[in-house]
């Protein structure tokens, strides 16, 4: 399938209020749509050959007060890669889990929950730790988290005992 055929197919069959499709590189498409239309679209894509979920990730657009969720899908049949993106509110970030469509989403969602604080409804792992153990600060991949100050607070700065003159003489 060519990129344009997929665009036509999606535009014909998926009802979405607002959104855009763009081909950003050969065989790679970007698809931005509203949060409520996301799951239907993903289901449609899965039924139409996109059997593999490559990844889910999140981008913190702190200036717009939004999180952007990105779902990467691959179709072997069509040899296409699609990024399906949606924006959610940053203050109360919630999303429906797609574990039932792709079981592998479980851990991607858990990771996003841990690093961005997005809550995925329907995912049992939401309160479990995955990578960060005993984390006591805000989700660290948010843009307002400052690793330098966190590190200064938690760890001692190592000071080396040497003098420039000593070095020069040696």
């Amino acid at each position, binding site marked *: 399938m060519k990129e344009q055929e997929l665009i036509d197919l999606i535009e014909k069959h998926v009802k979405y209020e607002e959104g855009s499709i763009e081909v950003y590189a050969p065989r790679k498409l970007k698809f931005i749509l509203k949060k409520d239309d996301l799951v239907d679209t993903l289901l449609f894509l899965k039924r139409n050959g996109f059997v593999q979920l490559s990844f889910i990730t999140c981008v913190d657009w702190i200036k717009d007060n939004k999180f952007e969720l990105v779902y990467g899908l691959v179709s072997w049949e069509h040899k296409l890669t699609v990024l399906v993106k949606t924006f959610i509110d940053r203050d109360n970030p919630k999303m429906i889990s797609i574990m039932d469509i792709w079981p592998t989403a479980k851990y991607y969602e858990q990771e996003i929950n841990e690093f961005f604080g997005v809550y995925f409804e329907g995912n049992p792992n939401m309160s479990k730790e995955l990578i960060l153990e005993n984390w006591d600060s805000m989700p660290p991949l948010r843009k307002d988290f400052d690793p330098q100050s966190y590190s200064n607070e938690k760890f001692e700065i190592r000071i*080396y*005992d*040497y003098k*420039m*003159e000593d*070095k*020069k003489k040696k």
Partner: protein
Amino acid sequence: MDKPKANLFSSIKSLKYLFKKPVTIEIPKVYREAADRYRGFHTNDWDKCIGCGTCSEICPTNAIRMEKVPGYEAGNGQTDERPVIDYGRCCWCGFCVDICTTGSLKMSKDYIFISPDANDFIYIPDEEGINKNYPEEGYRRNDETDLLELERVIMGHLSAEERGDSFIEYVRGYSKEEAIREASRCVECGICTYTCPAHMNIPEYIRTIWEDDLEKGVEYLYKTNPLPGVCGRVCTHKCESVCSLGHRGEPIAIRWLKRYIVDNTPDDEYEKVVLAEVSKPGKGKVAIIGAGPAGLSAAYYLRTLGYEVDVFEQMPLAGGVMRYGIPRYRLPDEALDRDISFIEKIGVRIHTNYKVDKEKFKELKEKYDAVFLSTGFFTGRKLPPHILPGSDHTDVIAAMDFLPKVRDFVRGMGEMPEVGEKVVIIGGGNVGFDVGRSVVRLQRMKYGKVDVTITALESEDILPADREELEEGREEGLKVVFSRGPKEIVIEDGKIKGLLTVKCLRVFDDEGKFNPQFDEEDKLFLEADQIFMAVGQAPDYNYIPDDIMEKLEIVRGKIKADEYGRTNFEWLFVGGDIKEGPDIIHGIANGHNAAKAIDEYLRKKYGIE
């Protein structure tokens, strides 16, 4: 490929390696030579290194710090800091080598270093290497791995044909894309700031261009220089001569970038910056004699500190050498007017056509709290007849007598100055070229053809004029004769026939003093009907009352003063050419410094904190 079948004995075959030579080696008995491109321990050539700190900027792991070397004298164009590498952090990516502006930092093929002391792994690279064995060079940067952009963005010029017969400004200025591209070459080492006489915040304002925040750029410019429009065009750009990028490539076009900021900021935004309030205004009145770079600079800074400032200028227009000395094609009036208009806008009063003489000087001294002298070197010097016979002829003209006339002519305030058909100019400095290129234009207007020769004492490689002046002058049709000393102006029938020159063997003696030596046999006669002399300018102190003059020390034509322009009189300050010698940027710096000193003096006088 057929699928393997189970076979117990095929694995037993592997035992044959018991009798083969093993591949591992015994260290330290055997040393394994690293590959030619190996990225091993660093070495640094201290003579080449300028301490720009770019290596420490690029280091992805923060392993490189710049530290002051105690007892190490920083020469011109370098800092007293050298890189220190923490091998506990280094990841041997080699980006420091790729980006090193001078090429002093290198990587060796040495890769083994053992020490029980963690502090030993903080290493100051020098040529010896960490193991003190002067290791062989490993990884080398090449054109492809270079992380610097070494070539300047080309500045658009009018062609010699287009510019040769008019006085319009021929440097076009950068477009936005060009300026940003040029600004993105800067590594922000700040070595230029130290070298600039006015210590302008060069990396900072270049950064504002790159960030496309010109308003902030103007702010940075006015911190140290109230005449950026002028300096963006005609500064001697000492900064560019030390630019760290100049070691391996072309220096950043700092002057053109400054001009870009000035030319591309709208007036209203400009005003916002210039008219910003100062927090602690001072009290008092200051008289400034001479509205040249130093005077205007002092006036601006004093005014921003809240003083009442009056500038007295004998000429009809303010600007001094900027108005009358530099040719129009290099510095158009509009640029100068713009700079001066902002200085006036903040409340500096400029009284033109006001010639200060001894009487008026005394008046000013009474009426004002402090007086700042910046009358410049405005009198043209000529070689006297006993050195150069014939130099008292009326067609032998000093540069400073000629250039103001040209400017007046161009702005429609005077007649076209007399130019001959064949012209010789004595003096290979920038002024000589200014005269020469002005004459070229006038000749083209008058005769439609060009015949101008410049004779310089110096050979081409030590020519005092800027390189670009020479190149552009030649494009326009100037002839330049190097290593020629004037011997005699030949006059026949009261008319100049030409200039007899002799070969100049050397200009400076072994001690570096000006002491030219000539080969009298090697003669060259240059035909001319008019001769210009650009052999320097002189001050004029006639306006200073004798009692004051007596107490001022004059050293080689300049009034002796400290760094801040303080003289033997606590109320009298000097700056510009009469303190430092002819150079606009020095004048501006003097004015700024004098303003600080005057401020201090007046605050003390009036007891204002």
